[in-house]
């Protein structure tokens, strides 16, 4: 940033000034630029940086159908009752066939459809480099810089990349529904690991208590440092348990090692994008050097890991 300001820098600075002043249209356009890596995106990231770190970000993830959107809707209500401004990033999957998407999560957040202190933006998962997580992180930053005191990120925890999106947040909430049974075993490895808070939603249904105890039993098998994850019961449709959830969120608050975590996260994101770029380069079938390496591997004259190391040379 030691170079002279370019027109793109000016444009970014103007946009950031306007979104900082509370102009929703500027925020919306900034998000579009960041999401799509429009020419001003780089300059925008720089211009946002001095204004980051004031809000608390909360990731909400879990299997489909557990009521995440309804829970987010309820949480928005709780934060608004405390007069805290709220940003929401709602992630929906893109169709692998067409690349298009139906963005319908915010449909269930309509309680706040006309509150100017709530800004909701839907993102399609698309085919982003490194998954959607790097992009989601930028969008969260834009909402943070715009002064949103709380930023919620909602995503379906159906696969690793969705879990990474939620992991962008300061606090990760994993939502489950009663009676998941076998699914719960499968969850053990992936999704539960990132949870700072576990929520059993739809607590008005049978088996809610039982599911909560099952979760606690699973947690007790963990390393001591990760054992004390709270397990809460909510019924988001009628607001039950939401106050306790918000109290728990505030008790955890901004993690003390936020800077270190942010750096670790940046490193993760960097690794993700770099891996994607490399994969793309290696899978393109027009590079004679890669062809030559493949020949050697197939003839058995070069080990696979050695060949892989060579592809990194000169990258």
């Amino acid at each position: 940033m030691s170079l002279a300001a370019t027109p793109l820098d000016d444009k970014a600075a103007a946009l950031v000034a306007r979104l900082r002043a509370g102009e929703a249209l500027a925020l919306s356009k900034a998000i579009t630029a960041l999401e799509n890596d429009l020419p001003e995106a780089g300059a925008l990231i720089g211009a946002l940086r001095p204004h980051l770190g004031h809000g608390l970000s909360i990731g909400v993830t879990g299997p489909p159908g557990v009521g995440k959107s309804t829970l987010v809707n309820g949480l928005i209500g709780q934060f608004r009752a405390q007069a805290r401004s709220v940003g929401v990033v709602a992630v929906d999957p893109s169709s692998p066939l067409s690349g298009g998407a139906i963005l319908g999560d915010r449909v269930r957040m309509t309680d706040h459809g006309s509150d100017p202190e709530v800004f909701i933006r839907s993102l399609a998962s698309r085919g982003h480099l490194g998954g959607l997580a790097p992009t989601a992180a930028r969008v969260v930053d834009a909402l943070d810089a715009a002064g949103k005191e709380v930023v919620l990120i909602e995503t379906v925890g159906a696969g690793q990349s969705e879990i990474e999106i939620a992991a962008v947040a300061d606090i990760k909430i994993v939502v489950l529904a009663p009676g998941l049974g076998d699914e719960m075993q499968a969850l053990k490895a992936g999704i539960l690991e990132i949870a700072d808070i576990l929520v059993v939603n739809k607590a008005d249904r049978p088996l809610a208590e039982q599911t909560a105890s099952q979760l606690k039993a699973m947690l007790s098998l963990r390393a001591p440092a990760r054992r004390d994850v709270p397990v809460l019961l909510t019924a988001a449709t009628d607001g039950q348990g939401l106050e306790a959830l918000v109290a728990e969120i505030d008790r955890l608050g901004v993690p003390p090692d936020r800077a270190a975590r942010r750096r670790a996260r940046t490193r993760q994101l960097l690794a993700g994008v770099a891996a994607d770029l490399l994969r793309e380069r290696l899978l393109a079938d027009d590079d004679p050097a890669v062809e030559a390496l493949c020949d050697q591997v197939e003839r058995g004259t070069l080990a696979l890991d050695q060949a892989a190391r060579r592809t990194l040379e000169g990258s």
Partner: protein
Amino acid sequence: MTAFSERTRPPRVLVTKVGLDGHDRGSRIVAAYLRDAGMEVVYTPPWQGIERVVKLALEEDVDVIGVSSLSTDHLLIPQLMTALGQAGLGHIRVVVGGIVPDGDEAELLAAGVAQVFHPGVTREEIVAGVEAFALEARAAFDLETAS
């Protein structure tokens, strides 16, 4: 997957219904058509208020708003056009689909609606129309003057 700089931005479209009627077969089919044509569609259930639609369009940075109307809810659309203009969203193209009598169609076009799609319109016509309007909307947007 292509590199960042080469990626194109799919059109973003809000498919909605304002007013009191709840028949959503048409809006659901159109939303699916647009998704299948590679667009990103923000979909709402029926009965949205004007203010809500404007806020949605603003936050989601959509290029086109498609409003489905089967009874008389299209009568509210001139109010929507005014509200969009006031919110600095005059660049967004609004299309209407459903049952709109001829006389009312002229009124809607005069209020700034880009096109009215009538029953019998084909998938291709809808997709091509919305794509063209999305490009128009992007070209028409100017950050300096919008506020």
